[in-house]
């Protein structure tokens, strides 16, 4: 490896390290209730692999590469679309609770 290649690698490693630090710092104190939606939200984010899949589709000339990239694009899109939609559905529950039911709860509180 040339010094230049190593420097490129080091730059990528720097970015990688910083992103890890961000990941650790951002998930500091999550209420247990949100563990599942948060896992699902993080799950959608790695759907970013779709960008990679699209780029290898561009470069694919051999049939085998084309097949591989087709599957990769389909897989990644399923991850992205399904991930965000299912996370939104989970979180909708949390919101609906507060908004729809607050007055009802107050009533029952007052009644009891």
């Amino acid at each position, binding site marked *: 490896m040339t010094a230049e290649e190593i420097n490129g690698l080091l730059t990528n490693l720097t*970015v*990688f390290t910083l*992103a890890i630090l*961000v*990941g650790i710092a*951002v*998930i500091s104190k*999550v*209420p*247990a*209730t*949100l*563990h599942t*939606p*948060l896992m*699902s*939200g*993080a799950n*959608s*984010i*790695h*759907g*970013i*692999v*779709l*960008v990679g*899949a*699209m780029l*290898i*589709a*561009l470069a*694919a000339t*051999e049939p085998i590469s084309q097949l*591989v*990239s*087709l*599957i990769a*694009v389909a*897989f990644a*899109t399923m*991850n*992205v*679309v*399904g*991930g*965000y*939609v299912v*996370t*939104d559905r989970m*979180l*909708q*529950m*949390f919101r*609906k*609770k507060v908004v*729809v*039911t*607050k007055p009802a*709860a107050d009533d029952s509180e007052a*009644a009891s």
Partner: protein
Amino acid sequence: MTTLEIVEILVRIAWLVGAVAFVIGLGRMNSPATARNGNLVSAGGMTIAVAATAILILARQSSDGGFSAVPWLIIVAGIALGGGLGLYTARAVKMTAMPQLVSLFNAVGGGAAALIAIDDYIRLANAGSHVRIDEHIFIVLDIIIGSITFTGSIIASGKLQGLIAGKPIIVPGGQLVTLALAAVTVVGALFLFATGTPNLATMVLILAAALIFGVTMTLPIGGADMPVVISLLNSFTGTAVAMAGFVINNPVLIIAGALVGASGAILTKLMADAMNRSVLNIMIGGFGGGDDAAGAVEGPGGSVRSIGADDVAIQLAYAQHVIVVPGYGLAVAQAQHAVRELAELLEERGVDVKYAIHPVAGRMPGHMNVLLAEANVPYPQLKEMDDINPEFARCDVALVIGANDVTNPAARRPGSPVSGMPILDVDQAKSIVVIKRSMGKGYAGIDNELYTNEKTGMLFADAKDGLAALTAAVKAL
């Protein structure tokens, strides 16, 4: 600068914007009030990154001498296929089946990451040129981690869905097989690094070993531990995606992958902590795993009082304060609507009803919140463990529905598998009613002395049927 160069620069900026949106989105998902908005921010970042990539592909094609249809066919077909499937399943799935679906999405994400490295390696093999050691390492890591995630997540999903037996599947000599598979991947990888020439046969061997390893790693783990395993595999996928970023030298894959890899790891630890287990302990497998785990044969140590629905209805209807303690059985029986109906009926009669939510009741963190929210149970009635525990002493009836371990007083003494886990102080209530089908054990596979407490009446029934009977009986009063 050429147009392509300008586009490449703008696309890199767009990717960075996308990555920042992921971080902000994830940060906002830390609190219930902003969580949904956070998910939208994250989705917005994804849209920007993907759209920028499409523009980049167009620009590269036109600078290469014009538009070519085949890549676009692949991309559009793939997006239509995957997007349609993802959208349909995400919309159609029932609330309780969400964890297994998340696991499936994780599987395909890991699969896509592995495929990127596989494609890259095929190209290198066709070219036959020397492979730089760092390229080789990232390719091998991507393939191994991505493949393990792919099969592992599918097995985890199958276990949660009940397609594969939830209890730990212990194959004789299974540990040896797993060890052998690990050895194959390591030796194969070292061989590739040493030679520096692309070798498809070795890579296929590594790929196969990793795929099988994903299965043998996940099979021995009890179904109840699956949420932690899914979170761990989620972190793996993030790492695999980061590796894919190194392979094709793409910063947004590196950033987003590392972000998920790290936050997923922390989340896994938090989830394991909430169950008073260590991640290692879970991965080694074999503990618990359903209603008929080892050791569940001895009978309870005292006599049990059975009680009928009519009796319970009277107790409930004339109580001042009732605390409902939902557990895994409520989720299994899909009795969340039934319990809300009963609670509303009681409230009409002036009874004060609250729900005691144990952090690890059910089979995933937040399981009870999500379940009861689906049935529109008013949010203020859901009380966290620490808030509700002092109230048990003042409540007239504690109605335990399909919960077992989270109420087991054995947790207060050392020496039992649940020792040290904080529990709901159900035994402080003036009267206790437990709805479950039998004297069957819970996840930890141990007896619950709450059932032999003299204040306790057992209403043996499926949770849904039992609640329906109670509702009918209260109405008839």
